[in-house]
């Protein structure tokens, strides 16, 4: 027996390269991409009939490192509190895979990767990627791992969109889907935020039309883009609790320095982000969010997806992907008479809640997975 909440331990990111030969990856835009490299990690063990695999998908700027820690490092993965022995995604029971996305910059092919045709990084030569293309790349990974049907596909925010895309695009290959703090499509407000993010990067002269790889990142533009992002990830209440109007140095400086703690927090977050995320990738990935749309009957077609079980989770204070958008997912599933569970968790953390509300999400996800995996033991007798 393992202890409850036991850590995953030392992990290593792995890479799958495919679509390198005569058959490049066909993208939704009509363009092609190849060869394609996809970063992923796995935790736990695949069972004999390969029926216990769970695919975890990450949000905008995260990576394949969802749980455990690398050798020589103590930094846990981004969803370490949820993945491990005795946790929501119990690695004593399930084989958990976390896949990165194409278009990003965390080990998978993206705009900062080397374009074999030119010998230089792609930059804006990189084709536009959609959520559908990300999932198509992940399908290659799942094929490679020899898994016909995933027990569950799960993700928050952009990861939730990928999870919904799995249901829409490969309904026969998933038994359950858990979309968290996400939407069937980006609203005009979300597209607007993303456009400000992109304009901030592109307005930085050091962006150089995307060809900055010999010179270094467009730091100011990318940092400001990320600052805006962080505002949308928190809630009014969580910012009040975290910073209130506290001053960094006790007094107003009567200058344009960072007087308030919230200002220095955003600057710190922005500056840090520049060190770990590629500016062009931010453009591509936000575009993928904006193009995503499985509304109007596109989520559930007529090809067997009514068998998929859904657990939809939203957070009360999330104003970036508000509960009404999760309710739209639920409505769509009701129209198709799908098996759906929905919970709006009364969290004050805003959009970040999917990373922070561990207990509530665990209380939903553990029994949901158990039911999906085992089903009911229905009594044979009638009452």
């Amino acid at each position, binding site marked *: 027996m393992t202890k409850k909440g036991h850590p995953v331990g030392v992990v290593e990111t792995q890479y799958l390269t495919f679509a390198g030969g005569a058959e490049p990856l066909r993208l939704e835009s009509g363009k092609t991409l190849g060869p394609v490299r996809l970063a992923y990690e796995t935790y736990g063990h695949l069972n004999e009939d390969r029926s216990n695999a769970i695919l975890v998908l990450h949000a905008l700027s995260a990576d394949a490192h969802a749980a455990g820690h690398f050798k020589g490092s103590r930094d846990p993965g981004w969803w370490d509190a949820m993945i491990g022995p005795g946790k929501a995604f119990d690695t004593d029971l399930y084989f958990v895979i976390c896949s990165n996305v194409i278009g990003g910059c965390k080990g998978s092919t993206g705009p900062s990767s080397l374009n074999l045709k030119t010998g230089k990084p792609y930059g804006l030569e990189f084709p536009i990627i959609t959520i559908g293309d990300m999932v198509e790349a992940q399908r290659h990974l799942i094929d490679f791992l020899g898994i016909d049907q995933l027990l569950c596909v799960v993700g928050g925010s952009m990861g939730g969109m990928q999870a919904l895309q799995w249901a829409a695009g490969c309904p026969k290959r998933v038994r359950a889907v858990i979309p968290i703090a996400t939407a069937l499509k980006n609203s005009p407000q979300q597209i607007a935020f993303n456009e400000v993010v992109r304009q901030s990067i592109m307005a930085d002269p050091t962006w150089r039309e995307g060809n900055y790889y010999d010179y270094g990142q467009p730091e100011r533009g990318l940092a400001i883009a990320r600052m805006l992002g962080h505002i949308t990830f928190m809630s009014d209440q969580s910012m009040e609790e975290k910073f209130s109007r506290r001053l960094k140095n006790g007094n107003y400086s009567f200058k344009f320095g960072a007087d308030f703690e919230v200002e220095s927090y955003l600057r710190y977050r922005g500056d840090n982000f520049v060190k770990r995320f590629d500016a062009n990738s931010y453009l591509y990935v936000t575009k993928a969010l904006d193009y995503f749309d499985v509304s109007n009957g596109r989520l559930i077609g007529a090809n067997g997806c009514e068998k998929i079980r859904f657990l939809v989770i939203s957070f009360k204070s999330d104003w970036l992907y508000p509960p009404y958008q999760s309710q739209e997912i639920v409505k769509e599933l009701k129209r198709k*008479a799908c098996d759906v569970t929905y919970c709006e968790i009364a969290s004050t953390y805003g959009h970040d809640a999917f990373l922070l509300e561990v207990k509530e999400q665990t209380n939903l996800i553990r029994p949901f997975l158990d039911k999906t995996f085992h089903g009911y033991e229905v009594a044979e007798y009638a*009452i």
Partner: protein
Amino acid sequence: MPSEDVRLDHRIIAGVVEAGSKILDLGCGNGDLMYLLAREKSARVQGIELDEAAIYECVKKGLSVIHGDIEEGLREYPDASFDDVILNQSIQQVRKVDEVFEQALRIGRRIIVGFPNFAHLGARSMLFFRGTSPMTKSLPYRWNDTPNVRFLSVTDFKRFCVEHALRILESHYLGGTKEVRFWPNLLAKDALFVLAKP
């Protein structure tokens, strides 16, 4: 075997529901009834519940439940999606009663309704002798903290069924531990009706 501690109303509902039915439980609470129907009648059950804490209870039992308001949550279901739509001990907390019944009849073949009888002897005597709002086992709330917004009797509900052209397939009147045979509007603490379209 069905355990002895199953509530009388749950036992009656489980007797009414056919094996393998598709059930929608509106205001399903902690899911005890759905769990019973799933296990003992192999029913495919779906619940709707407003209280977040009750959602966790349902999910823990392996049940499918939607966190939301039953007044808003029925429109998307296609016609005749369910065999039975259950409104057990929830109709007295609904404001848009007519609309909920209209939707329930559209999406379900039958409606199973259970509610506390406001005209029960105990409630009447509190009003008559003490001059206070009734507080009984079936109506356990004080006037200032009750979630109930509708106060109906067996007679009220039968009249409602006539006015709304609802066919009563079965009626059950509940005392404490067993069914009541005579003068239900006076002696029944709770009532349970199985309804269908005319």
